[in-house]
């Protein structure tokens, strides 16, 4: 009897596996999108029941954007949104010192008026700037750096308390006025 040679383990050719995986990969790359569900959240006012709320002139910060995307804030033309942010902060945190600015942060209202021809891009930039102004003021009100404040997690009670406190001190009051037709 011949002595059998020890058999080598049979190898399976796995070269094509990479190709198959590539095919699947490319399918998923093409057919799906990376979910980007983020945005600027706002609460709309409830449907108006013709209530005339009297607001003192000095407590309103007027922002008007026209159809050429030019911004007018408190009768001053704005070319730099960062400057507008400073103006808003100064206005809200006035605490009654300047007779032309707000009496207190609770009473301050930002009125944002747009034209039908205003571009959405410009509108979002302005809203974003207002949100940032308020975030900065809130962060300062609870004594945290802006970044730490933005990372507060409202699911944790201790951190939620801080957020609520900040919201009480500096309520976000921005009203979208009805657009004008020009």
């Amino acid at each position, binding site marked *: 009897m011949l002595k059998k040679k020890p058999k080598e383990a049979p190898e399976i050719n796995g070269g094509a596996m990479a190709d198959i*995986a590539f095919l699947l*990969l490319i399918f998923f790359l093409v057919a799906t999108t990376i979910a*980007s*569900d*983020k945005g*600027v959240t706002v*609460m709309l006012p409830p449907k108006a029941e013709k209530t005339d709320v009297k607001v003192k002139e000095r407590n309103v910060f007027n922002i008007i954007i026209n159809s050429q995307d030019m911004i007018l804030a408190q009768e001053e033309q704005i070319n730099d949104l960062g400057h507008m942010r400073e103006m808003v902060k100064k206005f809200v945190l006035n605490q009654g010192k300047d007779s032309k600015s707000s009496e207190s942060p609770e009473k301050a209202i930002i009125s944002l008026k747009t034209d039908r021809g*205003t*571009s*959405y891009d410009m509108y979002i930039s302005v809203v974003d700037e207002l949100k940032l102004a308020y975030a900065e003021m809130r962060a300062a009100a609870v004594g945290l750096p802006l970044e730490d404040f933005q990372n507060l997690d409202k699911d944790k009670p201790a951190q939620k308390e801080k957020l609520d406190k900040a919201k009480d001190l500096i309520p976000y009051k921005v009203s979208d006025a009805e657009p004008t037709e020009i």
Partner: protein
Amino acid sequence: MATFKKKTKTKQDIPTSALPDIIFMLLFFFMIATTFRESELLVKNSLPQASELTKLEKKSLVSYIYIGEPTDKKNGTEARIQVNDVLISTDQIVQHVISEKDKLGEDGNKITMSLKIDKEAKMGIISDVRQELREANALKVNYAANKKLRLD
């Protein structure tokens, strides 16, 4: 002089057996990190940029409205509103919101409307939509935007 032929012991081919594993890893990443397009877009939709973003929390409570110029010239060049797979007019929004709220049942009032608006759209149509949403009592609105990095 005797010459010695050097026997090369190194194998010529590179082992490629790990390649499929790497590709599979990539594949799984994409399978998890991405989602299928929910509806085919009939309007242009490039989102604006903003830095103060909030993440939408409960996906099931979110309903989307797309606004932008139609990609198909047959539908005109004015910005239009798209929900699900159809273009609708402004006065059909209330109807749409009510049916979306019905789908959610008890949580109907917690609905968030995510407005995916093309950055070239004009405020006119957007404020019309906003009025309709107030009419339908869907007050929580999210303007979808992409992350912008601030340099200051």
